[in-house]
């Protein structure tokens, strides 16, 4: 039986929330994001700004060159999170089969509901507009892949100055025909490098991919070739995943200015490791692999990882591994633009207990006390000190 999947995407979400706070922003070219002098990037931009070529993830300095009068609004993540929860609550009121894929996007499986998909989409859009004053666009199709692309196509073809508030329905059976004229880049899993290699094979549109022999795609892209071929025909049987278990946890910072001072870099490493340890603790997990990420001023990015003998959840073990990786990767005096620490291989943080060694109990009591202090007085009240 054919499924009915909705994809919902809030239109210029952060901007829409900011407009609720300050109605004077309506219709103006503005962007939410970091300040240009601290290398901020555009997190979200209004439709007026988009007409000047401003896009998400663009450096704010570039956005300002494209759109000289651009207003830069400092992000208020707490407010976005709250608004997002309000939206998600309304989706959950409709069905349990909701897969939130980001703060402003979700899939819904409405196959079991009596109404047709398009009617549900209209009602949802109207309700979110009326109750939360937030615009959104939806795609309706028989699977997640096509529903998401339908939203994107619907948004792109919207006319007018305001938010698109688009709804596009791809009826079952017409998936391949709908996708065929779209550029290959519009397909899941086709990034700039895949698109370039497809172009080299004379493939420009999704229809071209669907028409290409599967064997040729597999030869060029390995097992991804199978997925490409299936997806290009509008085939996707991935289910709505209502619960995502984290596979990794990480923290990274981009310095306001490149840093080459070893002590400063190592201090950042310690702070990132401590943050990751707290994340792990909050999730009740330990990680078997520690990862270090370094980006040089020329944007070359290196990642190095190390496996641990047992899942670590304590800051000391993550710090130690991060510093070992840093020793292997960083050359003295080299400037660093971004530094990150992460852990993967998440599992229950089981630790081999020792027959005589009672230190683990002591360490446990210290951690407990530190957490209690942080809970009462904030995360910065106490941190692990570095032996100077």
């Amino acid at each position, binding site marked *: 039986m054919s499924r009915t999947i909705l994809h919902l995407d809030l239109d210029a979400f952060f901007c829409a929330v900011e407009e609720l706070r300050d109605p004077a922003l309506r219709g103006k070219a503005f962007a939410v994001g970091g300040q240009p002098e601290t290398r901020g990037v555009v997190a979200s931009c209004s439709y007026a700004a988009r007409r000047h070529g401003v896009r998400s993830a663009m450096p704010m300095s570039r956005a300002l060159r494209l759109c000289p009068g651009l207003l830069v609004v400092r992000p208020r993540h707490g407010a976005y999170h709250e608004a997002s929860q309000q939206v998600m609550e309304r989706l959950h009121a409709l069905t349990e089969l909701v897969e939130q894929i980001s703060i402003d996007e979700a899939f819904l499986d409405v196959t079991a509901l009596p109404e047709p998909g398009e009617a549900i989409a209209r009602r949802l859009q109207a309700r979110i507009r009326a109750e939360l004053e937030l615009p959104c666009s939806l795609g309706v199709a028989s699977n997640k892949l096509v529903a998401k692309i339908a939203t994107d196509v619907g948004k792109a073809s919207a006319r007018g100055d305001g938010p698109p508030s688009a709804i596009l329905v791809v009826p079952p059976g017409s998936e391949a025909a709908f996708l065929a004229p779209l550029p290959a880049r519009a397909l899941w899993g086709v990034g700039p490098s895949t698109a370039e290699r497809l172009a080299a094979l004379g493939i420009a549109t999704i229809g071209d991919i669907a028409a290409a022999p599967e064997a040729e795609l597999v030869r060029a892209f390995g097992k991804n070739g199978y997925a490409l071929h299936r997806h290009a025909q509008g085939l996707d049987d991935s289910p709505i995943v209502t619960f995502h278990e984290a596979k990794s946890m990480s923290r990274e910072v981009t310095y306001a200015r490149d840093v080459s001072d070893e002590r400063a870099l190592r201090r950042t490493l310690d702070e990132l490791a401590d943050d990751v340890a707290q994340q792990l603790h909050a999730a009740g997990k330990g990680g078997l692999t520690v990862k270090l990420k370094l980006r040089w001023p020329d944007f070359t990015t290196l990642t190095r990882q190390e496996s641990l003998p*047992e899942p670590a959840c304590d800051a000391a073990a993550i710090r130690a591994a991060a510093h070992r990786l840093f020793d292997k990767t960083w050359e003295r005096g080299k400037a660093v633009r971004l530094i990150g620490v992460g852990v993967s291989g998440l*599992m229950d943080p089981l630790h081999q207990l*020792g*027959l005589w060694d009672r230190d683990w109990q002591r*360490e446990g009591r210290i951690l407990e006390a530190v957490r209690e202090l942080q809970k009462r007085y904030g995360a910065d009240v106490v941190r692990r000190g570095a032996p100077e």
Partner: protein
Amino acid sequence: MKISCLQENLAKGLSTVGRAVATRSTLPVLSNILLATDKGQLKLSATNLEIGISCWVGAKIEEEGAVTVPARLLSDFVNQLPADRIDMALNARTKTLNLRCARYEANIKGIDAAEFPLIPTLGEDGQVSLGPESLREMIEQVTLAAATDESRPVLTGVLAKLEGDQLTLAASDGFRLSVRKAQLPQAVAQPQEVIIPARALQELGRVSAEESEAVQMVISTQRSQVFFHMTSVDLVSQLVEGAFPPYQRIIPASHATRTVLDTASFRDAIRLAFLFARDSANIVRVRVTPGEAGGNGHVTISATSAEMGDNVGEMDAQVEGTEVEIAFNARYLLDVLSVIKSAQVALETSTASSPGVIRPVGGSDFLHVIMPMHIAR
């Protein structure tokens, strides 16, 4: 020196002493094997200054003498010769050993035997006789628990305790403990407690593999050495200095649950779980469920790998006590289950964070304690 012997006898003798040859020594003579005529036999010796092994090989001696030659070259050469008679003659001036066998002839340059360290020989006082078979079993059951890293040197050793007519061997790497007792044919006059390197005992187990006569042990505390004398092999080892941690204290005096399992099935289940555990810090979970109304209980053994998948095995067991779930390092369980000969083993547990004890059913001479893996807070 002029002697002849059979290739197979010499090859066997060289392999017996070969493991004591120093592999990374600054003293070149320690990479050599000493060949010396001794009471109508050919004596082979090697030492790395921690362990020394000597072995006597039947030989026809025409002219007495001694020399040392590189162990690796001599062993490799002799191993590849045909099973025939080997004639050896030493050029005393050049310290070159000439070997002839069938249609091969070789000259191997050696180092003066006088430069070879003197390997101390066995005294007569305080000899303790040990049955070779039970000795080998003891060594196997105990040395597996000794530490392999050198961060705490005493833990690389095996505690040997002689008291009355009992010998106790104990070893622990800090996470598990093996204790094995054996009856001595004769009571010792003085109680003694020394730490023998686990590696020396493993070598003893190896070189005594074909021994049927009792192995004689002498401990010299003044020289901080232990000697083992066998029919045609002597082994001497330095003792480990220091105090062995008090192990009796960590053997649980009681338990909440006693689970009796078939040894082979338990081992097989752990071995299967290990396939999934080896990518996830070797963690296996053992869940023990008592039977209802005195009936048989059962044990579930499971392992999960975040990347690869998971595995569950179930087996029947006689369970006395309360339900328990406890996680262990699969490697540790496999190690001990591989050296228990009895058909059934008992696993004694209390809580998920207190030590588990494994004992063979129907014998009280061996016990093994394993600390579980547990959430570290």
